[in-house]
């Protein structure tokens, strides 16, 4: 495994843990209940803090490994760039699905069962945060997959 792959694996694991925390804080069963603004703010700040600390720790570890002689070469850079593009593409598609939901709800004001209730702020918050985690997760998974395949 290259340093880039190990780093992607660690970053993915941290991302999954933070997303689990977010989900546990926002979801009750399969529904997103009403929540106070203060609770949403606190959750967002905590997720941001955990993400910053986690990614910072991974960066420090990667720097240490580089000092020990681990390499990230041109192929790793190419793989990371391709994974970045794929992550961006998934984010672009996910945001467009959200836009489609907003357009649907502006056309049919009563939320249909199979649409997300975008007017419900905790739902909107959770969906937007999920899109961020999805982009991050896809990028890390693609680094792992492309590292094996290309």
């Amino acid at each position: 495994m290259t340093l880039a792959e190990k780093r992607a694996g660690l970053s993915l694991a941290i991302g999954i843990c933070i997303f689990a925390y977010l989900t546990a804080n926002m979801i009750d069963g399969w529904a997103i209940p009403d929540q106070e603004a203060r609770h949403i703010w606190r959750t967002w700040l905590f997720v941001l803090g955990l993400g910053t600390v986690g990614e910072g720790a991974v960066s420090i570890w990667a720097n240490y490994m580089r000092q020990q002689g681990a390499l990230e070469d041109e192929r790793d850079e190419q793989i990371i760039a391709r994974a970045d593009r794929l992550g961006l593409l998934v984010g672009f598609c996910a945001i467009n699905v959200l836009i489609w939901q907003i357009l649907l709800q502006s056309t049919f004001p009563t939320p249909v069962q199979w649409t997300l209730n975008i007017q419900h702020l905790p739902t909107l918050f959770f969906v937007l945060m999920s899109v961020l985690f999805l982009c991050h997760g896809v990028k890390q998974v693609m680094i792992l997959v492309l590292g094996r395949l290309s």
Partner: protein
Amino acid sequence: MAVAKGRVLNQIRQLRTQAGLTQQDFANLVGATRQTILAIEAEKYAPSLELAFRMARALSVPFETLFQFEEEGTGSK
């Protein structure tokens, strides 16, 4: 005018084993990872010009001995 597609072939595996180098030794010599050497030898990855020249220099062979370009369809090198 349409340009015919092609692929880059290489003799790295043969020349490396002739030189008695493992993939890891060779990777250390040229400043790449073992996985990159593996991918180049399997012709899954075409290296940059800089890395290609480093490889030729490390094996003490001319660039053309190490890499060949084959145009698709023609089979010409």
